[in-house]
């Protein structure tokens, strides 16, 4: 049951990313050129509505489907890792034209080249795991 639930949520995500063109390299390029409102509209609507959802969960102390109160874990209070890691991520996001969600979406859409992108994403994650103690966080 739980498996089907999470699979269905993923299905909704994949269809949404494909159909809204958020998984298109062209849309990401256009966003960084400030040539269209499209991507800003998607992220802005999602965050604006998301703030309301999170506030509702916190104030009403809502419970999840397993009966436990929904926890929203804050991120640790650091500076460098978010800015430096974020910049590296952004460089890759604009070049590959896809962040992790769209990479998996596009793989399903039939772009075999995404296997290369995902494999190198795994390699990047692996290298981070190897050298993380030497990086400023």
């Amino acid at each position, binding site marked *: 049951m739980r498996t089907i639930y999470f699979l269905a949520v993923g*299905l909704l995500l994949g269809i949404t990313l494909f159909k809204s063109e958020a998984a298109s390299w062209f849309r990401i390029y256009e966003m960084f050129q400030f040539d269209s409102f499209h991507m800003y509209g998607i992220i802005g609507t999602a965050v604006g509505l998301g703030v309301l959802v999170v506030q509702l969960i916190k104030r009403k102390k809502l419970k999840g489907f397993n009966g436990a109160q929904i926890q929203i874990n804050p991120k640790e209070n650091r500076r460098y890792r978010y800015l430096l890691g974020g910049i590296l991520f952004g460089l890759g996001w604009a070049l590959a034209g896809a962040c992790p969600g769209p990479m998996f979406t596009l793989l399903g859409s039939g772009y075999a080249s995404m296997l290369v992108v995902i494999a190198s994403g795994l390699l990047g*994650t692996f290298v981070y795991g190897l050298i993380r103690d030497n990086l400023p966080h």
Partner: protein
Amino acid sequence: MNIFMEPWPWYISGILITGVMALLLWGNKSFGVSGNFRTLCTLCGANKKASFFKFDWRAQRWNLWVMVGTILGGFIGANFLSNDSAVSINESSVEKLQQIGATDAGKAYLPEFLFGTEALTEPKSLALLIIGGFLVGFGARYAGGCTSGHAISGLSNLQLPSLLAVMGFFIGGLVMVHLIFPILF
């Protein structure tokens, strides 16, 4: 039903993405796709090489199912919910892209020169895909999240760390498109 077959407007997409986040919170989980990269590394045996990958991957199985769903969603979106997958981006972007050799701008979903089957035998295109993927994988773990974890989940929770990360995403993206693309293409 025709409206489903057309590209979906930004507000529908934004609402549905918040829906995904809310459904995961309701499942007592949090929205973050790039966490799967770490889990997949562990499944490939990375836990024998670095302590970062020593964790109980079974606790992340739910996220792998979200990932499988995302792949299937991409399949359904492209094959059953689209008549034509051309992305009509702004004319001004089309012109800029024509100049750097992306002649299919405005007519395709992804540029052929980077993602086409022939591009896989082109050393330069292949190198760019590898570098792009690597930076996303490395940067997401370094920053502790990607677009879903920071830009959507983190900003929705009004977290300062996520604001810093999203600023980083944009600095990196703007540098790539405005400063590095002119050198690359």
